[in-house]
């Protein structure tokens, strides 16, 4: 039983780290633009398809395909923002959230229209797991884990050291004060959406690498992403990472405790518990 528990823990940490990438994108957009962008699931799907096309049609190696997934999704995210969400800015966060949800549906169906429902696989060999006694870890899992960590490190460096990154954090901390200091809100919003959507695209591709690509890749993640962001505290960057890892582990451990068919309950229970007991989430101060 201890082995099963530890194995589920390993699987959960890896799954959670990959989930953290799109959760970071979601929470970054929330922090700066103050609305939950529910197109994040469809954007993850865009990234999965972009990476797949780069890998199979253009023969790109993984890191280059990941960069392409980031770029393509950044563009798609900006399109969603400018076409669907921005015109409704004055109507409030709820309307913007609904607009993003609708834009996500459009994106998902555009992909379905273009690529069909067929499952797509990356041009990669599938390797057997490494075994360490009773435990096992997959080479692909480790690679995805490393790529997810690298993406998070890059984001951290960007937010910490670049002028734009600092401007983003300033707007997230205190919008009015940041504007008084001469931060350009339009530019900051655009960069945030591009980076947030790009991260979602990378997350979508990382999940696609481990599974396969179809128009519902991102849709299947949206609840977990949202639960991770809420748990960590909406708008909190370290919170999104911690929340995602906690959700990943909880989902895997739940398999041992309950019938796996009830996995979805985990996400909902976490959202319910956080909103009831600590609405600000683990790391957030904004929601309270």
């Amino acid at each position, binding site marked *: 039983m201890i082995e*099963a528990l530890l*194995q*589920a823990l390993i*699987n959960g940490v890896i*799954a959670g780290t990959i989930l953290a990438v799109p959760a970071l994108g979601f929470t970054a957009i929330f922090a700066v633009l103050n609305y939950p962008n529910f197109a994040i699931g469809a954007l993850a799907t865009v990234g999965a398809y972009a990476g797949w096309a780069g890998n199979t049609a253009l023969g790109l190696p993984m890191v280059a395909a990941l960069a392409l997934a980031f770029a393509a999704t950044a563009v798609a995210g900006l399109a969603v923002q400018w076409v669907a969400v921005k015109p409704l800015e004055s109507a409030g966060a709820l309307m913007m959230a609904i607009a993003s949800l609708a834009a996500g549906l459009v994106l998902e169906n555009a992909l*379905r229209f273009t690529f*069909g*429902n*067929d*499952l*797509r*696989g990356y041009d990669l*060999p*599938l*390797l*057997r*797991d490494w*075994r360490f006694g009773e435990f*096992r870890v*997959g080479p*692909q899992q480790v690679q995805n884990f490393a790529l997810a960590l690298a993406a998070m490190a890059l984001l951290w460096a960007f937010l910490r050291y670049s002028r734009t990154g600092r401007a983003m954090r300033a707007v997230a901390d205190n919008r009015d004060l940041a504007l008084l200091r001469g931060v350009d809100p339009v530019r900051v919003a655009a960069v945030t959406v591009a980076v947030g959507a790009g991260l979602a695209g990378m997350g979508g591709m990382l*999940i696609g690498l*481990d*599974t*396969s690509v*179809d*128009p*519902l*890749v991102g849709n*299947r*993640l949206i609840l977990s992403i949202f639960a991770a962001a809420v748990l960590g505290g909406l708008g909190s960057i370290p919170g999104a990472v911690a929340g995602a890892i906690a959700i990943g582990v909880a*989902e*895997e451990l739940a*398999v*041992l405790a309950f*019938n*796996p*068919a*009830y*996995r*979805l309950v985990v996400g909902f229970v976490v959202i319910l518990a956080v909103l009831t007991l600590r609405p600000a989430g683990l790391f957030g101060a904004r929601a309270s």
Partner: protein
Amino acid sequence: MIITTRRTALIAGASLLAAPGLVRAQEGPIRLGTLTPLTGAGGPYGPVMANGVRAVVNEVNAAGGVRGRQVQLVSEDDQTNPEAGVRAARKLIDVDRVATIMGTWASAVTTAVAPLCWESRTFLATVSGADSITALPHNGWLIRTQPNTTLQGRKFGEYVVELGARKAVFMAPQTPFTQSQVTNMKPPIEAAGGSIDLLIYDATKPSLRTEVDQVLRARPDIIVLGGYTPDTTVLLRDIFRAGFRGKLLAYAYSVNQQMISSLPNDVTEGIHTLAPSPAEGTSAFDRVKRIAGTDNPDPYTCQIYDQINLVLMAMAVGNDATGQGIRDNIRKVSQGGGDRVDNAVDGLRAIAAGRKVDYDGASGPCDFTDAGDITDCKFRYEQVRGGRQVLIRIA
């Protein structure tokens, strides 16, 4: 005189309003609906199925329609999702006023749509397999061309034994057929001294590693995969990664050529598949090959081809183009002897000439029990070898 005229007009108007829907439905074109999964897990099958029906309808319309009336087809998407299926069925029933809905694929969708059909006197023809479907109180408003899970489960159980396996695990998402499939696999396996366990997983999970670990801890010598294509793809990758060397058995609708092409050969090599077999070599099957533009049409396209042919002939034989007409007459054209026909155009011609017809289809003989199940079906045993499905036998 004026009073009489007014009274006549009133009576005429009132009787027009009071005329049963049936009379009005008997004028103008006949409307029929397909409700197939154009998207979702059934997405690879639904579009081909809808096109198959359209081809038959076009042929019949070109040959003069059903007793002189043209047939209009309305195709909707159930998204392999019960909630979307109900919405689409409501539209077909309330807005398009179709006489029949054909082709519901996933058992969960059929289970949700069936009550709407029998309550609105719309005939339902499905390709879903769950036992529970024909056990619904449908009162004759439903038939299915797919063998039920009692039969399929028994065949799977017998095949597990034939493959020499004794310790089996059935891994499947929660569907209306999961439980009855395992229940019916059990007797042949237990009779051979073996055992079978069930693990239900969440089909939307991107990784099933922990579930696979749990199954492998029981050290099975065969894993039977009971899901649809997207989740079975995830499952197969994780089973491969875990280093499982035992046997794998799956439904052919999930481990299909499209899935095999999307996975490395190492992962799919040796998987056994089982499926209700279309009636290969029959003239009806050849017609479906031509319509679908492939030498290997899937079982569901064959089945829906049979459904539309039966529906059109049932309407003609009863001279009643409503759901009621189909319900009351479908067994008069599907069984009981008469001119053997394999398509509606020939059947309609024979019916117009006053002859009895007995339809033999592309999916099989298409004879139905009172509950709506087919009475006979062959199965197709295949194995994946070198990235291709190789036929072992049809029996």
